[in-house]
Structures are given as C-alpha cells and as structure tokens.
C-alpha cells in the first residue's frame, strides 16, 4: 500500500522541500553559531578549575551530542526506508552519514585537544572519547559499505540495514565502554562532563548546541537533494534540469566563441 502512496512526484516534492528549508536552517545556523561562539569564547566566565581551556566545551559537546543524534536519525531513516519501502528515507541515510562522521571527527579532535592540557596527553582512554572513536568506526563502515556497491539502490539499502544494526549497538557500546572505563581507571581521571555549570556558561553552550543542529539540518538538506537527483537521474524532471544546464553551457560556449571572433 505504501508503494502506491508514494507516487514518483514525491521525490521531486522532497527535492523542492529541501531547497525551501535550506535558507531557514542556514540562517539559523549562522546566527546561533556566531553568537554562541563569540559569547562562549569571549564573554563567558572562565572555569575556576580548568581556566580558559574549558571553552573548547562549546565545540566538543555540541559535536559529540549531534554525532550520536545524527547516527540515531540515520538509523531511523534506514528503518523507515526498509520497513515502509520509502526510497527518500533510504537516500537520507547516505546524506546523513558523512556529516555525522565529520561531527564525530570534530568531537574526537576537540576532545583530544582539550585532553592535552587537562590530562597531559593527547589521547586518554576516557569513556566518551572511546565511544566517539567507536562511533567513528561505525560511520566509516556505513560510508565504506555504501561506496563499495556499484548499484546505488542496493548500496542505500545495505547501509540502511547496517545503520539499524549499528544503532542497536550504540547504547550497548556506550554503556559497556563507560563500565569498562570505571573498572580500569576508577575516578582518578576527570571526565569530560560539565560539573554543575553556571548559567553564564550554559547559555552560549545551548546556543552552539542548537547551532550545530541547524548546520546538520542544512547540510543534510543539501546532500539529500543531491542524492535524490542522482537516484532520479532518468526521470523527466531531472532530465529537464540536465538539458537546461547543457543549453546554458552551450550558450556560454557560443558567447565565448563570439567574443573570440570579435
């Protein structure tokens, strides 16, 4: 029944929706990220224990939160795509994956840089950093799996299945790593958790958390639109777009040759 509920116009509708939403997300992202970062970097008071190095929190925590959030939404899209056979949801999986991987990478790097002054080492097997590292592997798996299939439809479904399997594991991994961490290192190492944070510090953090969410949303809109374009390459509406582009290219070429002659 669902198959009949999604007529082929729907891909085009989604494509247009992506571009309609894009400016809102982009502007919201710019406003929140710029204000949050400036507030956090220059105006928020410094932490009494960590000094000004704590300001890395404004980048580490949002990316860490949304790296997990992106994985979860990716898996939800995969599930919707597999269960209800909705092509656009399958396409969203690979639209989200690279952005999520980049966020995970940022969370890891910022965590490591923060760790250097805190622990005196770039890498400590801290619970959150370790699970971020494993999350990065999970993302890389999804991306690698998608790219190794020639047929992109098969690729989209395979990576959807992997994302679903992965998301069942994410909480288990998180929990197990946390547990392993307390077992092996006890409480001697300060975790990257925010200890009862003061409101002056919290507001910019919330701004940046929402800012990174908008960045994620905007990027996913762009990439999803592109995925739809690739998937629908043989449909008339995409063909019209391609031929329009061809005409434009020819026109500009003609202009160039005319200019040369003159």
């Amino acid at each position, binding site marked *: 029944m669902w198959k009949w509920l999604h007529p082929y116009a729907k891909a085009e509708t989604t494509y247009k929706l992506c571009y309609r939403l894009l400016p809102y997300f982009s502007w919201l992202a710019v406003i929140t990220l710029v204000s949050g970062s400036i507030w956090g970097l220059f105006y928020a008071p410094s932490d009494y224990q960590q000094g000004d190095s704590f300001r890395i929190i404004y980048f580490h925590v949002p990316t860490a939160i949304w790296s997990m959030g992106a994985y979860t939404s990716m898996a939800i899209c995969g599930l919707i795509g*597999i269960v209800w056979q909705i092509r656009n949801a399958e396409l969203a999986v690979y639209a989200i994956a690279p952005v999520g991987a980049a966020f995970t990478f940022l969370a890891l790097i910022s965590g490591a840089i923060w760790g250097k002054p805190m622990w005196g080492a770039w890498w400590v097997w801290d619970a959150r950093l370790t699970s971020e590292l*494993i999350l990065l*592997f*999970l993302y*890389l*798996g999804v991306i*690698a*799996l998608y790219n*190794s*299939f020639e*047929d992109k*439809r*098969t690729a989209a*479904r*395979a990576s959807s*299945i*992997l994302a*679903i*399997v*992965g998301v*069942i*594991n994410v909480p*288990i*991994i998180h*929990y*197990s*790593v946390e*547990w*392993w961490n307390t*077992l092996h290192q006890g409480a001697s190492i300060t975790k990257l958790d925010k200890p009862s944070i003061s409101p002056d510090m919290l507001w910019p953090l919330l701004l940046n958390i929402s800012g990174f969410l908008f960045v994620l949303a905007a990027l996913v809109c762009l990439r999803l639109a592109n995925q739809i374009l690739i998937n629908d390459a043989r449909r008339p509406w995409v063909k019209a777009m391609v031929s329009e582009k061809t005409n434009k290219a020819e026109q500009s070429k003609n202009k160039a040759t005319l200019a040369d002659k003159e």
Partner: protein
Amino acid sequence: MNNLSTSKPLSYWSAFKSIFIREIKLAWQKPTQLVQPVVFFLIVVTLFPLGISPAPKTLQMIGPGVIWIAAILAIMLVVERLFRQDYQEGTIEAWLLSTVPMSLLVGAKLLAAWFISCSVLVLITPVLALLMNIETHVIPALMLSLLVGTPILLFVGAIGNALTVGLNQGGVLLSLLVLPLYIPVLIFATSLIEAATLNMSYTGQMSILISMLLVSCFFAPVAIAAALKNTVN
C-alpha cells in the same frame, strides 16, 4: 503423475533440519575448512608470549584478553566465507524463493556453523589457557564466556557477511563493519574472566552476555535475511 494440486506437505521443522544436516555434511567433506580457524586461533595466541613477554605474571594478566581477541579473529575467518559459496551457487536465491521463512533457514545455517566451527574453539581453550598460564579455576569461566560469546560474534558477523557477500572485496570491508560491533562482547567477556580470576561473582557480566545472545538470536536472522534479499537484487 502431473496433478498440480497435490503436494507433499512442507514443514518448517524438516526444512530447518535439512539445512542443518546439509551443513554438517558439507563440513564433513571439507575438513580443512573446519580445522583452519582452530589452527589460526592457536597460532595467534602463540604470537603473544613471543611478542610481549613469556613472564608468567604478564601472561596471566593479558591471557583472557589475548584468547578473546584471537577468538574474534578466528571467527572473522569463519564469518568471511559463511554465505559465499551459497551465494555464488544460487542457493541463497533458492532459499528466498522457498515458502519457508528466510530467517528460519538462516537460523539453521548459523546454528550449524556454530557447531561446526565455533564449538571447537571453545573446546580447545583449556589448552590455550595453560599456554597463557591462566589459573585452572578460571578456565571454566573462560570457557563459559566463549560458549555464550562466540554465537553472538558469529551472528553479528554473519550480518556483515550477508551485506558484503555480493562484493568482490570482502575481507577488509567486513572487518570494518563488524569489529566495532564486537567491542561490547569483548569488554563484558574479559571483565567476566577478570572477576573470575579475583574469585568474585560474575553473574552480572554473564547475564549481560546472555541477554546480548538472546537479542542477537532474535535480530540477526531477520537482519541477515533482509541483507541477503538486498544483495541478491
């Protein structure tokens, strides 16, 4: 003779049984495939004392982890070729076209694969435990952890194999997909053994492992069936 309406009733149980028996027969005909993971398991464990230190204290400390990592690698070998022949010969297609649910058929295959390849790994661990200088009272815990843990590894690995079986390059991609998913099992299993070494109760870790086994028993065949259906496309 050509009456199209009468047919022998098809039972799920006999289908399950026939796949199980087929796997055993196949394994019996190709004993090298049966022995390979076991030998690999032994060799990998042997490398560690040579590479780190043969001091009994060190061996005792790293022993459980080493045995578990070696078991994971050995199972990766098993998993890598799990569905390959069936895929290449078209058996997977035939399964998909059978009226018996795919996940049941996959379950039979996995159960047989566990008996064929993984049970041997569990059985030879006492030998490895002696090599790694692990105290005798820890050996039952080690074997128990492998008994519960190896099916999880096999089931999760089979999902990875089902996803990549249609591709030419299997191995590296498979390990990228599967190894991160193995981490929780590794953590809980080694901590179970650690608890046993300290003469502490390990029911907590055991129950976590068992619940992971149940979850993977339930989900893996469904995921594998979906993945195989997708690969055959």
